[in-house]
């Protein structure tokens, strides 16, 4: 039921978490936005943190995800798409792109939806600190 891409991303992340942006940043820092979405009851929780420079460019990301292999692979895919993007560009990342890149089956679409939601929340958190 998993595509080769999901398995590859999952295993890379599992076996070498540091190199794949697993971790956390100081949630209180002004240049960091945190978004946590999902719930243990649903079987997945994703926490995304973005570090943004003064030109509104995402310079680094960290994440941790509780969830199935697809949820972890979706997080990884999302990170790759985020780093180097401006906030406006990041806001336009759609769950469908993530799902297509990972060839997620329909019962796993919620994993990519979760990723999109976490981006929106992380950006909103960052912007609320700046305001």
């Amino acid at each position, binding site marked *: 039921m998993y595509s080769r891409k999901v398995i590859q991303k*999952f295993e890379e992340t599992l076996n070498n978490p540091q190199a794949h942006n697993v971790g956390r940043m100081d949630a209180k820092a002004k240049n960091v936005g945190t978004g946590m*979405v*999902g719930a*243990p009851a649903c*079987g997945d929780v994703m926490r995304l943190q973005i570090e943004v420079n003064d030109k509104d460019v995402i310079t680094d990301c960290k994440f941790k995800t509780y*969830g*199935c*292999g697809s*949820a972890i692979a979706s997080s990884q895919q999302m990170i790759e798409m985020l780093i180097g993007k401006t906030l406006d560009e990041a806001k336009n990342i759609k769950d469908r792109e993530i799902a297509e890149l990972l060839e997620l089956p329909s019962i796993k679409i919620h994993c990519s939806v979760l990723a999109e939601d976490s981006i929106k929340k992380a950006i909103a958190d960052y912007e609320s600190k700046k305001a």
Partner: protein
Amino acid sequence: MKSNLVYFDYASTTPVDKRVAEKMHECLLLDGNFGNPASRSHEFGWKADEAVEKARLHVANLVKADSREIVWTSGATESDNLAIKGAARFYKDRGKHIITSKIEHKAVLDPCRQLEREGFEITYLDPDENGVISLDNIKKHVKDSTILLSIMHINNELGAVNDIEEIGKFTRENNIIFHVDAAQSTGKLPIDLSKLDVDLMSFSGHKTYGPKGIGALYVSRKPRIRLEALIHGGGHERGFRSGTLPTHQIVGMGEAFRIAADEMEKDNHNIAQLADLFWKEVSDIEEIYLNGSFENKIPNITNISFAYIEGESLIMALKDVAVSSGSACTSASLEPSYVLRALGRADELAHSSIRFSFGRFTTEKEVKMVAETTKRVVRQLRELSPLWDMYKDGVDLEKVEWVTH
């Protein structure tokens, strides 16, 4: 099959024992015992019939029944269907209330749902926190209209054992038909139907090193239990179950049950040691919970919740180990195990359960390897888990306001 794969899923199915496969081989080809057991007019039929009856004796012998009380079916699912729907429909004039439990196999729950559509009333009992159905709980729900009780002997996800001896005494006194799904029991716990007050009992071939596609239903003769058949056409099996008997399958199940009777003690001794070793190896992992209790479960099944890790990712990380998350029939869905839910386990624990099940061919080397791998991947997945961070930070997960989708 990749040779480095380790099979720890004996509760979902077992490989066929070599001795069983050899017996089955003898019943297929032109020079073998291929005849139709129902053919009364020639030697081919007589020989096939003889093999079928010998197998019936082996099955009856394992559970101390009369061979005339054993009806061949296509498997435990069919046996459950025949027992539950067959008894309910036959005895419906006595009453239309049936009692079962929330943690039965789907092969019991789904026929009960069907009977609800036919106008029967079903009570689904809650298990205790270890997955056991107590007699007190049953007594509380019995009514004048109760005709049937269906309770499993051993739960397939937890290995929890119900006291069918005590329950049977009660149902017999109260004139309630007692059906027991014993798909997980044969070769693991001794069963003595000459003493037990059980009226109907389901068996499976493939859970006990026999082939898939064959099972049996014990139908008590004393007292005589009657059933409305589900399949008509030829009146085989004394009208309980029509259809040409699959000699090779039946001979396979018979041989598997013969071996089980001979080797149960040895198998169980080995498996208990391996299960102890496994638990000893993994139990130093923080925040793990055994589902069920050591005091009242078979050693073949060890069901563990690994807190703060999701079960599907754990299965994926344990890639060279065949285990299951919940029951194999539901692992394609995203729902956490309904069995663990019924025990009252918190969602994150129900989502993180893995059933390790051992069997006749499990080795000490495999147990050590799987325990090591489990320890490693649990550590790795917790490093990825925001819930683990929160737990380590002392955050109470019950109090967090989650953003559900």
